[in-house]
């Protein structure tokens, strides 16, 4: 298992390098340049000024050189100054905003896992009864409806109709509730659906019958025998779940005015803020890759039949 984890960690480097390369190529292969005026219809910079700026940011060098410089600096954690926020380095911006996104994402994930498991178990235990229908409909809505649409409904319901929570901001825990729920509903729906399906399978298995036959109560049967086995396929979902929460945060953060990293993702791209784009893509990429590794290792913990 140690060897497996180590080799996976080593694989992380080429993966991130490939990701950086793809992003770099997409950035430079498409028309437009960071030297173009930011607002539409504005006068372009004079050729001399453009030349000076290009030289200052190293944009006049050949592409392979630019990429090599980027990699050698990025390895040391230096992503340079943002093109848009000219006085701030990219590291500063990320260090300030990433923890907020991380907090929001973690809360959403915890809610999704706890809520999804609960709904899935309820649906399986009370198959074809009210609880089943309630949780299946909730799961379907969560899976099908985009989170920014859910966010709008949540604001209408819980800020206007029943004024429980504020419509946005990030100052107090009361502000955290609606964004977390909006972000959690989609992964929660997926987990609930999978838990229900695998619980239904496990409940009909012979060992569950045996557990009942030896006189165990419903509680121990469900939680000790069934859930442990039903949980295994659910663990595989956690990888894509992180991705869903990560990318979902762009939209949720925008609607609820959360000062996280998601906002910079879109802003940096439309503003052609090259250093910022690279940093944001790589931060997400590295985060997701590490989480996928953790999930794969967890899989071995939950299912002892798997050996690495």
């Amino acid at each position: 298992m140690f060897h497996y984890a180590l080799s996976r960690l080593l694989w992380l480097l080429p993966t991130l390098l490939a990701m950086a390369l793809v992003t770099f190529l997409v950035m430079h292969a498409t028309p437009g340049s960071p030297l173009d005026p930011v607002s539409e219809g504005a006068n372009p910079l004079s050729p001399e000024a453009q030349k000076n700026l290009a030289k200052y940011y190293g944009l006049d060098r050949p592409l392979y050189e630019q990429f090599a410089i980027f990699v050698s600096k990025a390895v040391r954690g230096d992503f340079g100054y943002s093109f848009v926020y000219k006085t701030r380095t990219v590291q500063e911006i990320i260090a300030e905003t990433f923890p907020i996104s991380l907090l929001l994402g973690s809360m959403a994930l915890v809610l999704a896992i706890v809520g999804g498991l609960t709904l899935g178990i309820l649906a399986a235990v009370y198959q074809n009864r009210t609880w089943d229908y309630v949780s299946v409909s909730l799961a379907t809505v969560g899976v099908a409806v985009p989170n920014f649409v859910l966010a709008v409904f949540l604001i209408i319901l819980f800020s206007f109709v029943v004024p429980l929570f504020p419509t946005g901001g990030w100052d107090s825990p009361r502000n955290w509730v609606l964004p977390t729920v909006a972000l959690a509903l989609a992964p929660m729906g997926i987990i609930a659906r999978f838990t229900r399906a695998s619980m239904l399978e496990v409940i009909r298995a012979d060992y569950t019958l045996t557990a009942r036959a030896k006189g165990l109560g419903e509680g121990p049967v469900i939680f000790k025998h069934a859930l442990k086995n039903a949980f295994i396929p659910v663990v595989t979902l956690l990888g894509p779940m992180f991705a869903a929460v990560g990318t979902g945060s762009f939209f949720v953060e925008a609607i609820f005015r959360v000062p996280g990293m998601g906002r910079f993702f879109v802003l940096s791209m439309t503003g052609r803020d090259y250093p910022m784009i690279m940093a944001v893509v790589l931060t997400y990429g590295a985060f997701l890759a590490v989480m996928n590794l953790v999930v794969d290792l967890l899989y071995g913990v939950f299912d002892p039949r798997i050996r690495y």
Partner: protein
Amino acid sequence: MASSIRASDTSVGRELGPSRLDGLGGPHPRSDAQGVSAARSSSLWRDGVRRLLRNRLAVAGGVVVVLLCLIAIFADFLAPLPYTKTNFSRLNEAPTRAYPLGTDQLGRDLLSRMIYGARVSMLVGLGAQVIVVIIGVPIGALSGYVGGRTDLVLTRFVDVMYAFPRLLFVILVMSMLGAGLTNIFIAIGLTGWVGIARQTRAQVLTIKEKEFVDGARALGAGFGRVLGRHVMPNALTPIIVAVTFGIPEAIFTEAALSFIGVGINPPTPSWGQMVGEGQQYIRSYWHLCVFPSIAIAVTMLSFVFFGDGVRDALDPKLK
């Protein structure tokens, strides 16, 4: 596992019917199905349609989908006003008799804009799937059938693409290419084929080992004929299921892109863009984002119900 069982169950019957490799886009499998059912009393397709019609939720979803397509096609006749018609004396008005869903920040009729918005959603949903299938299915089929080095190279490439968070890549490509319908097709096409290629490859891998494929080869059928007439028709079911779920995903992608402002170019109305613009004024003018939100939610749910129905109908063994 389930797929291998099913493939052998249906393979004999399917061999009799006419089938085409290029018939993956949508209506073709149906028309093939009629050919099959004429030859045999009970076929996979006829059973599938019967099972689908018994599923009330799927039928309801299908009806809404058809309605949305009709609205998209006949938007010019249905919309009370052109979607660009502004009325600066009636800005941000709540629903009234003259404007059933109110007006937006430029005094444009919200109902008309929503009707035209259906056009963008349906076009992206269906059009993107055509591109995805055209790219993904041949790559997957080739990779699975030829195997060896080709397979290795293609799977590696697919794996790298798969590792990239999908929406992240789409946003990157869109913000670089600029907003616009054509670019949305390019962005979704570039990223969406990966899943379907994987699916097709897995199918082809199991089916090419079957006896009837050996039989066809023994009878002297060439590469194209074996792949096109014997392997692919049996790999169709999961591809169709993937396409039915790909449609709402593409619609979601367009809505999400337009929401953050890198999707459809204004003034062309898109539901996602209307939600994105409207949510900024949600305190004062709730109607601006609520109606398009409802439209997106209803569309997505209908497609998902319909897709669930199609999956259950074509393959009761899949979950």
